[in-house]
Protein backbone atom coordinates (compact mmCIF):
# COMPACT_ATOMS: atom_id res chain seq x y z
CA UNK A 1 0.00 0.00 0.00
CA UNK A 2 2.94 2.34 -0.44
CA UNK A 3 1.81 3.45 -3.91
CA UNK A 4 0.34 6.95 -3.36
CA UNK A 5 -2.19 6.35 -6.14
CA UNK A 6 -3.42 3.20 -4.41
CA UNK A 7 -3.52 4.96 -1.04
CA UNK A 8 -5.71 7.64 -2.61
CA UNK A 9 -7.88 5.02 -4.29
CA UNK A 10 -8.44 3.25 -0.99
CA UNK A 11 -9.27 6.61 0.60
CA UNK A 12 -11.69 7.40 -2.22
CA UNK A 13 -13.27 3.96 -1.79
CA UNK A 14 -13.72 4.59 1.94
CA UNK A 15 -15.40 7.90 1.11
CA UNK A 16 -17.66 6.39 -1.55
CA UNK A 17 -18.53 3.48 0.75
CA UNK A 18 -19.33 5.86 3.65
CA UNK A 19 -16.68 4.25 5.82
CA UNK A 20 -15.05 7.50 7.00
CA UNK A 21 -15.51 9.21 10.32
CA UNK A 22 -16.94 12.73 10.23
CA UNK A 23 -13.48 14.25 10.75
CA UNK A 24 -11.96 12.17 7.95
CA UNK A 25 -14.84 13.12 5.69
CA UNK A 26 -14.37 16.85 6.31
CA UNK A 27 -10.64 16.59 5.65
CA UNK A 28 -11.21 14.56 2.48
CA UNK A 29 -13.77 17.02 1.14
CA UNK A 30 -11.32 19.87 1.74
CA UNK A 31 -8.76 17.94 -0.31
CA UNK A 32 -11.34 17.41 -3.05
CA UNK A 33 -11.83 21.14 -3.42
CA UNK A 34 -8.08 21.69 -3.67
CA UNK A 35 -7.13 18.73 -5.87
CA UNK A 36 -8.93 18.40 -9.22
CA UNK A 37 -7.18 15.08 -9.93
CA UNK A 38 -8.63 13.64 -6.74
CA UNK A 39 -12.09 14.92 -7.70
CA UNK A 40 -11.71 13.27 -11.10
CA UNK A 41 -10.70 9.98 -9.51
CA UNK A 42 -13.72 10.23 -7.22
CA UNK A 43 -16.01 10.76 -10.23
CA UNK A 44 -14.57 7.63 -11.82
CA UNK A 45 -15.08 5.58 -8.66
CA UNK A 46 -18.62 6.89 -8.36
CA UNK A 47 -19.36 5.88 -11.97
CA UNK A 48 -18.31 2.30 -11.22
CA UNK A 49 -20.41 2.36 -8.07
CA UNK A 50 -23.37 3.51 -10.21
CA UNK A 51 -22.93 0.48 -12.47
CA UNK A 52 -23.18 -1.80 -9.44
CA UNK A 53 -26.11 0.21 -8.11
CA UNK A 54 -28.00 -0.54 -11.33
CA UNK A 55 -26.92 -4.19 -11.26
CA UNK A 56 -28.21 -4.64 -7.73
CA UNK A 57 -31.70 -3.45 -8.68
CA UNK A 58 -32.25 -6.83 -10.27
CA UNK A 59 -35.00 -8.66 -8.45
CA UNK A 60 -33.51 -11.67 -6.70
CA UNK A 61 -35.19 -14.99 -7.37
CA UNK A 62 -37.95 -15.75 -4.91
CA UNK A 63 -37.05 -18.55 -2.51
CA UNK A 64 -39.40 -21.48 -2.55
CA UNK A 65 -42.12 -21.20 0.08
CA UNK A 66 -41.21 -24.48 1.72
CA UNK A 67 -37.53 -23.79 2.42
CA UNK A 68 -37.95 -24.40 6.15
CA UNK A 69 -39.68 -27.74 5.54
CA UNK A 70 -37.04 -28.79 3.02
CA UNK A 71 -34.12 -27.86 5.28
CA UNK A 72 -35.65 -29.73 8.22
CA UNK A 73 -36.42 -32.74 6.02
CA UNK A 74 -32.84 -32.69 4.81
CA UNK A 75 -31.56 -32.57 8.38
CA UNK A 76 -33.70 -35.55 9.34
CA UNK A 77 -32.78 -37.41 6.19
CA UNK A 78 -29.13 -36.57 6.87
CA UNK A 79 -29.33 -38.10 10.36
CA UNK A 80 -31.11 -41.16 8.92
CA UNK A 81 -28.61 -41.41 6.12
CA UNK A 82 -25.70 -41.37 8.55
CA UNK A 83 -27.18 -44.30 10.53
CA UNK A 84 -28.10 -46.13 7.34
CA UNK A 85 -24.68 -45.56 5.82
CA UNK A 86 -22.87 -46.99 8.87
CA UNK A 87 -25.22 -50.03 8.76
CA UNK A 88 -24.63 -50.32 5.05
CA UNK A 89 -20.88 -50.24 5.68
CA UNK A 90 -21.02 -53.18 8.11
CA UNK A 91 -23.25 -55.24 5.84
CA UNK A 92 -21.01 -54.47 2.91
CA UNK A 93 -17.86 -55.64 4.78
CA UNK A 94 -19.49 -58.94 5.82
CA UNK A 95 -20.79 -59.50 2.30
CA UNK A 96 -17.33 -58.84 0.86
CA UNK A 97 -15.74 -61.45 3.17
CA UNK A 98 -18.42 -63.98 2.29
CA UNK A 99 -17.83 -63.50 -1.42
CA UNK A 100 -14.05 -63.85 -0.96
CA UNK A 101 -14.44 -67.04 1.08
CA UNK A 102 -16.85 -68.52 -1.48
CA UNK A 103 -14.44 -67.65 -4.30
CA UNK A 104 -11.53 -69.32 -2.47
CA UNK A 105 -13.56 -72.50 -1.90
CA UNK A 106 -14.64 -72.54 -5.55
CA UNK A 107 -11.08 -72.15 -6.86
CA UNK A 108 -9.79 -74.90 -4.55
CA UNK A 109 -12.58 -77.21 -5.66
CA UNK A 110 -11.88 -76.45 -9.32
CA UNK A 111 -8.16 -77.21 -8.91
CA UNK A 112 -8.99 -80.44 -7.13
CA UNK A 113 -11.50 -81.56 -9.74
CA UNK A 114 -9.14 -80.82 -12.63
CA UNK A 115 -6.36 -82.77 -10.94
CA UNK A 116 -3.99 -79.84 -10.49
CA UNK A 117 -4.28 -80.25 -6.77
CA UNK A 118 -3.95 -83.87 -5.58
CA UNK A 119 -4.07 -85.14 -2.05
CA UNK A 120 -1.53 -87.89 -1.11
CA UNK A 121 -3.60 -91.09 -1.21
CA UNK A 122 -1.24 -93.35 0.80
CA UNK A 123 1.88 -93.45 2.96
CA UNK A 124 3.48 -95.68 0.29
CA UNK A 125 3.69 -92.77 -2.11
CA UNK A 126 5.59 -90.69 0.42
CA UNK A 127 7.94 -93.60 1.17
CA UNK A 128 8.53 -94.17 -2.55
CA UNK A 129 9.27 -90.52 -3.05
CA UNK A 130 11.72 -90.55 -0.15
CA UNK A 131 13.56 -93.58 -1.51
CA UNK A 132 13.78 -91.96 -4.95
CA UNK A 133 15.25 -88.85 -3.43
CA UNK A 134 17.91 -90.82 -1.54
CA UNK A 135 18.81 -92.70 -4.70
CA UNK A 136 19.18 -89.46 -6.64
CA UNK A 137 21.43 -87.97 -3.95
CA UNK A 138 23.63 -91.13 -3.95
CA UNK A 139 23.99 -90.82 -7.71
CA UNK A 140 25.11 -87.21 -7.43
CA UNK A 141 27.69 -88.09 -4.73
CA UNK A 142 29.00 -90.89 -6.88
CA UNK A 143 29.32 -88.57 -9.86
CA UNK A 144 31.26 -86.06 -7.75
CA UNK A 145 33.63 -88.80 -6.58
CA UNK A 146 34.26 -89.77 -10.22
CA UNK A 147 35.20 -86.21 -11.06
CA UNK A 148 37.68 -85.91 -8.12
CA UNK A 149 39.52 -89.15 -8.86
CA UNK A 150 41.09 -88.25 -12.26
CA UNK A 151 42.34 -84.95 -10.72
CA UNK A 152 44.37 -87.06 -8.25
CA UNK A 153 42.79 -85.75 -5.11
Amino acid at each position, binding site marked *: *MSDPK*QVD*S*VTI*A*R*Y*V*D*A*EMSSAEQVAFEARLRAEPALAEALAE*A*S*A*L*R*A*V*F*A*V*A*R*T*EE*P*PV*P*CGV*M*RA*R*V*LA*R*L*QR*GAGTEVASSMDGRVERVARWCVLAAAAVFVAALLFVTGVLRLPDSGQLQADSGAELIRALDAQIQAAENVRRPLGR
Partner: protein
Amino acid sequence: MRTDEDDLIAQAAAGDHGAFGTLVDLHGARIHRLMSRFTRDPGELEDLTQEVFVKVFRKLGTFQRDSAFYTWLYRIAVNTATDYLSRQRRRRLHLVETDAELEAVRTHERTAGSATPLLEEEVRRVTREVLGTLPEKYRTILILREFEDLSYTDMASVLQCSMGTVESRLFRARQRFKEALERQYPDLVPQFAAVKPRGGMSPR
Protein backbone atom coordinates in the same frame (compact mmCIF):
# COMPACT_ATOMS: atom_id res chain seq x y z
CA MET B 1 -28.55 -8.12 26.16
CA ARG B 2 -30.01 -11.49 25.28
CA THR B 3 -32.39 -11.42 22.34
CA ASP B 4 -35.04 -13.75 21.02
CA GLU B 5 -32.58 -14.77 18.35
CA ASP B 6 -30.05 -15.78 21.02
CA ASP B 7 -32.69 -18.00 22.59
CA LEU B 8 -33.52 -19.54 19.24
CA ILE B 9 -29.83 -20.18 18.58
CA ALA B 10 -29.39 -21.81 21.99
CA GLN B 11 -32.47 -24.00 21.48
CA ALA B 12 -31.43 -24.94 17.95
CA ALA B 13 -27.91 -25.76 19.16
CA ALA B 14 -29.51 -28.12 21.67
CA GLY B 15 -31.16 -29.93 18.74
CA ASP B 16 -34.54 -28.19 18.66
CA HIS B 17 -35.58 -28.41 14.99
CA GLY B 18 -38.55 -26.08 15.54
CA ALA B 19 -36.30 -23.29 16.80
CA PHE B 20 -33.93 -23.87 13.92
CA GLY B 21 -36.86 -23.71 11.51
CA THR B 22 -37.66 -20.24 12.85
CA LEU B 23 -34.04 -19.19 12.21
CA VAL B 24 -34.40 -20.48 8.64
CA ASP B 25 -37.57 -18.38 8.28
CA LEU B 26 -35.75 -15.29 9.59
CA HIS B 27 -32.63 -15.55 7.44
CA GLY B 28 -33.67 -17.77 4.52
CA ALA B 29 -34.51 -15.01 2.04
CA ARG B 30 -31.27 -13.15 2.71
CA ILE B 31 -29.09 -16.23 2.26
CA HIS B 32 -31.09 -17.22 -0.81
CA ARG B 33 -30.45 -13.78 -2.32
CA LEU B 34 -26.72 -13.98 -1.49
CA MET B 35 -26.42 -17.41 -3.10
CA SER B 36 -28.26 -16.16 -6.18
CA ARG B 37 -25.19 -13.98 -6.84
CA PHE B 38 -23.15 -17.15 -7.21
CA THR B 39 -25.48 -19.30 -9.28
CA ARG B 40 -28.33 -18.55 -11.65
CA ASP B 41 -29.56 -22.11 -11.86
CA PRO B 42 -32.81 -22.30 -9.83
CA GLY B 43 -32.30 -25.92 -8.78
CA GLU B 44 -28.70 -25.36 -7.69
CA LEU B 45 -29.71 -22.16 -5.92
CA GLU B 46 -32.31 -23.97 -3.80
CA ASP B 47 -29.88 -26.80 -3.14
CA LEU B 48 -27.04 -24.46 -2.12
CA THR B 49 -29.28 -22.44 0.18
CA GLN B 50 -30.45 -25.59 1.91
CA GLU B 51 -26.85 -26.83 2.12
CA VAL B 52 -25.89 -23.61 3.92
CA PHE B 53 -28.56 -24.14 6.56
CA VAL B 54 -27.71 -27.81 7.03
CA LYS B 55 -24.09 -26.74 7.69
CA VAL B 56 -25.28 -23.98 10.00
CA PHE B 57 -27.30 -26.46 12.05
CA ARG B 58 -24.33 -28.81 12.35
CA LYS B 59 -21.98 -26.00 13.35
CA LEU B 60 -24.29 -24.11 15.68
CA GLY B 61 -22.42 -25.47 18.67
CA THR B 62 -19.26 -23.68 17.49
CA PHE B 63 -20.92 -20.25 17.16
CA GLN B 64 -18.98 -18.04 19.58
CA ARG B 65 -21.22 -14.94 19.64
CA ASP B 66 -18.14 -12.75 19.07
CA SER B 67 -19.81 -11.62 15.85
CA ALA B 68 -23.39 -11.07 14.78
CA PHE B 69 -25.25 -14.24 13.89
CA TYR B 70 -25.93 -13.04 10.34
CA THR B 71 -22.22 -12.40 9.65
CA TRP B 72 -21.46 -15.91 10.92
CA LEU B 73 -24.21 -17.17 8.60
CA TYR B 74 -22.67 -15.20 5.73
CA ARG B 75 -19.29 -16.76 6.48
CA ILE B 76 -20.72 -20.27 6.12
CA ALA B 77 -22.65 -19.19 3.02
CA VAL B 78 -19.55 -17.67 1.40
CA ASN B 79 -17.52 -20.80 2.16
CA THR B 80 -20.28 -22.94 0.68
CA ALA B 81 -20.36 -20.72 -2.40
CA THR B 82 -16.56 -20.91 -2.71
CA ASP B 83 -16.72 -24.72 -2.59
CA TYR B 84 -19.46 -24.59 -5.18
CA LEU B 85 -17.38 -22.35 -7.46
CA SER B 86 -14.38 -24.65 -7.27
CA ARG B 87 -16.63 -27.62 -8.10
CA GLN B 88 -18.00 -25.62 -11.02
CA ARG B 89 -14.51 -24.71 -12.18
CA ARG B 90 -13.64 -28.38 -12.24
CA ARG B 91 -16.71 -29.00 -14.37
CA ARG B 92 -15.58 -26.14 -16.63
CA LEU B 93 -18.88 -24.32 -16.27
CA HIS B 94 -19.36 -20.62 -15.77
CA LEU B 95 -21.81 -19.33 -13.20
CA VAL B 96 -23.14 -16.66 -15.50
CA GLU B 97 -26.17 -17.21 -17.65
CA THR B 98 -27.13 -20.44 -19.25
CA ASP B 99 -27.40 -20.38 -23.02
CA ALA B 100 -31.15 -20.05 -22.73
CA GLU B 101 -30.85 -16.96 -20.53
CA LEU B 102 -28.37 -15.38 -22.91
CA GLU B 103 -30.68 -16.04 -25.81
CA ALA B 104 -33.57 -14.47 -23.88
CA VAL B 105 -31.48 -11.32 -23.33
CA ARG B 106 -30.49 -11.22 -27.01
CA THR B 107 -34.14 -11.57 -28.03
CA HIS B 108 -35.03 -8.79 -25.62
CA GLU B 109 -32.30 -6.61 -27.15
CA ARG B 110 -33.72 -7.16 -30.61
CA THR B 111 -37.32 -6.45 -29.65
CA ALA B 112 -37.24 -3.94 -26.81
CA GLY B 113 -38.44 -0.45 -27.68
CA SER B 114 -37.27 1.66 -24.74
CA ALA B 115 -33.56 2.44 -24.49
CA THR B 116 -33.26 2.96 -20.74
CA PRO B 117 -34.60 -0.39 -19.51
CA LEU B 118 -32.51 -2.06 -22.20
CA LEU B 119 -29.35 -0.36 -20.94
CA GLU B 120 -30.20 -1.34 -17.38
CA GLU B 121 -30.76 -4.91 -18.46
CA GLU B 122 -27.47 -4.78 -20.33
CA VAL B 123 -25.70 -3.39 -17.26
CA ARG B 124 -27.07 -6.25 -15.14
CA ARG B 125 -26.13 -8.88 -17.66
CA VAL B 126 -22.65 -7.51 -18.29
CA THR B 127 -22.00 -7.02 -14.58
CA ARG B 128 -22.92 -10.64 -13.88
CA GLU B 129 -20.79 -11.81 -16.75
CA VAL B 130 -17.72 -9.75 -15.80
CA LEU B 131 -18.08 -10.74 -12.15
CA GLY B 132 -18.12 -14.35 -13.27
CA THR B 133 -14.70 -13.96 -14.86
CA LEU B 134 -13.02 -12.57 -11.74
CA PRO B 135 -11.03 -14.73 -9.32
CA GLU B 136 -13.25 -15.99 -6.51
CA LYS B 137 -11.85 -13.72 -3.77
CA TYR B 138 -12.50 -10.57 -5.81
CA ARG B 139 -15.92 -11.71 -6.89
CA THR B 140 -16.90 -12.53 -3.32
CA ILE B 141 -15.82 -9.20 -1.86
CA LEU B 142 -17.63 -7.29 -4.62
CA ILE B 143 -20.79 -9.29 -3.99
CA LEU B 144 -20.59 -8.61 -0.26
CA ARG B 145 -20.00 -4.90 -0.74
CA GLU B 146 -21.90 -3.94 -3.89
CA PHE B 147 -24.85 -6.31 -3.70
CA GLU B 148 -25.20 -7.18 -0.04
CA ASP B 149 -24.13 -3.73 1.20
CA LEU B 150 -22.00 -5.10 4.03
CA SER B 151 -19.82 -2.66 5.96
CA TYR B 152 -16.04 -3.09 5.99
CA THR B 153 -16.25 -4.40 9.56
CA ASP B 154 -18.83 -7.02 8.60
CA MET B 155 -16.83 -8.04 5.55
CA ALA B 156 -13.73 -8.47 7.72
CA SER B 157 -15.79 -10.69 10.01
CA VAL B 158 -17.29 -12.75 7.18
CA LEU B 159 -13.99 -13.17 5.36
CA GLN B 160 -12.01 -13.54 8.60
CA CYS B 161 -9.39 -10.99 7.63
CA SER B 162 -8.24 -7.55 8.77
CA MET B 163 -9.81 -4.24 7.79
CA GLY B 164 -6.63 -3.41 5.86
CA THR B 165 -7.05 -6.60 3.82
CA VAL B 166 -10.69 -5.73 3.13
CA GLU B 167 -9.70 -2.25 1.92
CA SER B 168 -6.89 -3.41 -0.34
CA ARG B 169 -8.79 -6.43 -1.68
CA LEU B 170 -11.84 -4.31 -2.44
CA PHE B 171 -9.64 -1.80 -4.21
CA ARG B 172 -8.05 -4.53 -6.33
CA ALA B 173 -11.41 -6.16 -7.00
CA ARG B 174 -12.87 -2.93 -8.34
CA GLN B 175 -9.76 -2.35 -10.41
CA ARG B 176 -9.92 -5.87 -11.86
CA PHE B 177 -13.64 -5.46 -12.56
CA LYS B 178 -13.04 -2.18 -14.39
CA GLU B 179 -10.18 -3.63 -16.43
CA ALA B 180 -12.23 -6.71 -17.36
CA LEU B 181 -15.18 -4.52 -18.32
CA GLU B 182 -13.00 -2.34 -20.54
CA ARG B 183 -11.34 -5.38 -22.10
CA GLN B 184 -14.50 -7.38 -22.72
CA TYR B 185 -16.94 -4.59 -23.52
CA PRO B 186 -14.97 -1.58 -24.77
CA ASP B 187 -18.00 -0.27 -26.69
CA LEU B 188 -20.25 -0.32 -23.65
CA VAL B 189 -17.93 1.48 -21.24
CA PRO B 190 -18.82 5.03 -22.43
CA GLN B 191 -22.54 4.21 -22.09
CA PHE B 192 -21.98 2.72 -18.67
CA ALA B 193 -20.20 5.87 -17.55
CA ALA B 194 -23.50 7.73 -18.01
CA VAL B 195 -25.52 5.17 -16.07
CA LYS B 196 -27.49 6.47 -13.13
CA PRO B 197 -29.48 4.20 -10.90
CA ARG B 198 -33.17 5.08 -10.92
CA GLY B 199 -33.65 5.28 -7.18
CA GLY B 200 -30.39 7.18 -6.62
CA MET B 201 -27.27 5.74 -5.11
CA SER B 202 -26.83 4.98 -1.48
CA PRO B 203 -25.16 6.02 0.71
CA ARG B 204 -23.59 8.78 -1.38
